[in-house]
């Protein structure tokens, strides 16, 4: 993958740093990165801040597939980890503030019935239904946009949550792996969900190998993907990673049917919707295992983590809601939901 285009002072400085050889950052580089990160973190809405979310996405990507032109040794560079921590803190603080009341309410209910409270939390979500729109109104161009934007998460589907495996113990670990095994194709490489997704892109005429989709993804889409790494890369947030995983699984089965319906209505070939078709059935299982067995076992063993599980789910629902609102607002106005090509300058137009 080639590195994305910068979207502001921080990502410009970060990408310039990454193009060099890893070594001691000069005091000037370090101060510049910290100041730019601080400025990005001052954003009133870090979820919508293009510079912040792209920088976080780039820093996380060093832990996944990396970039063709970036030295892999940057992954554990202390100077970059310091920047990552600054951004994560602003992001996490914002998510906690946004979900505080909902988490308090749902946690209260979860103390007597954890599965019931988690199912209810996901079902109470009144975010806009992209799949409902897809089934009845989505155009062919909007289908492509959906696939390009979801590629940010789906081409590494299950990878971020996998970082939580060694951070969980006993039954919770077993049940997380049980689901992940299925996500990774249950022993059949061609059935890996990320592979099915790449197949869907190709069948729709899109190129999954071209990382250009990242440049087209607005901050909210990157944020919805970044949050999983924020949770799963920190042992402190392992329960939030589990709660987020449960959110993904329990909001997938029924909407996936809508996407199958959309693809069929648009006359797309089977490979274009097989990914979604697989999720109708797979996630009807996974939601039960994730909520009852994974989250259930985690909280049974570590009761103090209950609120963190609920926070993970609530934060995920909030971010998916932001993505859904973005898509439908743009599409209802007849506009593209993609980010436009980056202008010659580095500054994001206001």
């Amino acid at each position, binding site marked *: 993958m080639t590195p994305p285009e910068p979207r502001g002072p921080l990502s410009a400085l970060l990408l310039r740093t990454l193009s060099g050889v890893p070594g001691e950052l000069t005091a000037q580089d370090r101060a510049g990165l910290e100041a730019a990160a601080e400025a990005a973190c001052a954003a009133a809405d870090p979820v919508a801040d293009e510079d912040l979310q792209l920088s976080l996405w780039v820093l996380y990507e060093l832990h996944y597939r990396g970039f063709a032109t970036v030295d892999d040794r940057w992954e554990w560079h202390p100077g970059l980890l310091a920047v990552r921590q600054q951004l994560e803190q602003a992001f996490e603080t914002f998510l906690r503030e946004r979900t505080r009341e909902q988490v308090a309410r749902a946690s209260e209910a979860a103390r007597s019935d954890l599965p019931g409270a988690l*199912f209810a939390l996901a079902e109470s979500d009144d975010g806009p239904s992209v799949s409902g729109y897809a089934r009845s109104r989505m155009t062919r161009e909007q289908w492509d946009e959906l696939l390009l934007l979801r590629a940010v998460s789906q081409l590494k589907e299950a990878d971020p949550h996998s970082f939580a495996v060694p951070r969980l113990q006993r039954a919770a670990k077993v049940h997380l792996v049980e689901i992940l095994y299925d996500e990774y194709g249950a022993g059949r490489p061609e059935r890996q969900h990320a592979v099915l997704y790449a197949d869907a892109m190709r069948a729709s005429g899109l190129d999954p190998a071209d990382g250009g989709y990242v440049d087209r993804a607005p901050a909210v889409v990157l944020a919805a993907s970044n949050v999983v790494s924020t949770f799963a890369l920190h042992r402190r947030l392992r329960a939030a990673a589990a709660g987020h995983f449960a959110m993904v699984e329990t909001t997938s089965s*029924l909407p996936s049917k809508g996407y199958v319906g959309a693809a069929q209505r648009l006359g797309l070939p089977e490979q274009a919707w097989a990914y979604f078709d697989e999720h109708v059935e*797979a996630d009807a299982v996974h939601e*039960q295992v994730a909520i009852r067995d994974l989250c259930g076992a985690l909280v049974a063993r570590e009761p103090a983590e209950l609120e963190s599980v609920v926070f993970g789910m609530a934060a995920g629902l909030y971010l998916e809601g932001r993505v859904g609102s973005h898509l439908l607002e743009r599409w209802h106005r007849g506009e593209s939901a993609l980010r436009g090509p980056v202008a010659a300058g580095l500054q994001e137009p206001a």
Partner: protein
Amino acid sequence: MTRRPAGEVRRDVPGGPTLVRGAASYTDEQGVVHPVTRPVVAVCRCGASQRQPWCDGVHKLLGRRAT
């Protein structure tokens, strides 16, 4: 929770499907054998699934009742 031969374990979840772990196949009430390709499968209990014998999550639209 019911133990079946060959390590198969079945469990009905409240208001949801029957979870079957460790099965190589699932035989429905008509005697039709369905191959199992997942570590765990969810068998429909509400009768509303369009993916019989598997659950498709549609019970959640029935007011979360297993019927």
